[in-house]
């Protein structure tokens, strides 16, 4: 987990610079990424250093709802040593469950 802050900082600064989006703040992006990493470590029983962020798409459009979401793809190494991938979708803007500003992510793959 010690590399986690560094990974998030790098990710946030990269995306904030390269692909600015009026509806997703760098803070929200960082929070969403942190949430997905935590979810993977929790579910797969791995440490954060086994996780690599493959891509972040803040303009992913869900065709069923036409909603714009944040898509995060990751690869990781399972405790058994197998290479795997995971994909998360995050409600990017004003998800605001219970008046919280935190974006919420769920794993779809």
């Amino acid at each position, binding site marked *: 987990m010690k590399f986690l802050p560094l990974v998030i900082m790098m990710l946030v600064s990269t995306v904030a610079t390269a692909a600015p989006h009026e509806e997703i703040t760098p803070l929200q992006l960082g929070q969403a990424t942190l949430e997905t990493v*935590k*979810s993977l470590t*929790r*579910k797969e029983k791995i440490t954060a250093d086994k996780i690599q962020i493959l891509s972040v798409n803040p303009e992913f459009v869900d065709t069923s*709802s036409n909603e714009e979401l944040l898509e995060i793809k990751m690869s990781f190494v399972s405790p058994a040593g197998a290479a795997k991938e995971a994909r998360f979708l995050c*409600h990017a803007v004003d*998800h605001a*469950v*219970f008046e*919280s500003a*935190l974006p*919420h*992510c*769920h*794993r*779809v*793959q």
Partner: protein
Amino acid sequence: MLKIVLIVLSSLALLACSGGNNPDRQLQQKAADTKQIISGIAYDVIQPSTLTFDGTKASGSGKIVALTSVNNPKGSAFKIALDLEDNGEVILHTYSDNKLKNGFDISIARQGGKIKFTLTSAGKTIDYSELEGLAAINAVETIELSMDVHNNESPAHFILWKSSEATFDENTALLNSADEPQATPGKGSGLFFGLTLKDASVIGLTNHKPYVSH
């Protein structure tokens, strides 16, 4: 003369209000009068049943709707304690209509010593019985579970814990739908909650604000 007419009309209006139909008051009165209570919450039986109530719990088979709406229209926590006979089942209906339809349903059934745990909504069912923490539950003993239903997400976000946990967060959950590619089957479209029992006893059911606030 005009004053007298006004006084008579006002009196008639007041009489009409005081003696008129007031569904809210009737519901409150019904809740106050009923003996069909679990954990202090009054229920209405909505299907012919063999249910018996002893003032704190319900036992048998039948369907009951709470005479109050869910704690929060966005999301709620439910804490339930129940005993199941073999092949018995309890369905907790959340965010449903007042007939307990069109909701987000959590089913806990017993098959021998194991539990079958499913989520149903929008005509779809997801079976989480084989999930590590759930498969380890002994269905012969009293089952005590706590859960969050965040119904303002689509599909609803569902988090489940053993009620014996010291803390209720995403790290201690038995099941967190956000971690599962299957997620949940949908979300409810009402504000009522209630129970379907089949050869079961519900010892306690409380409804309060969610444990996890996002």
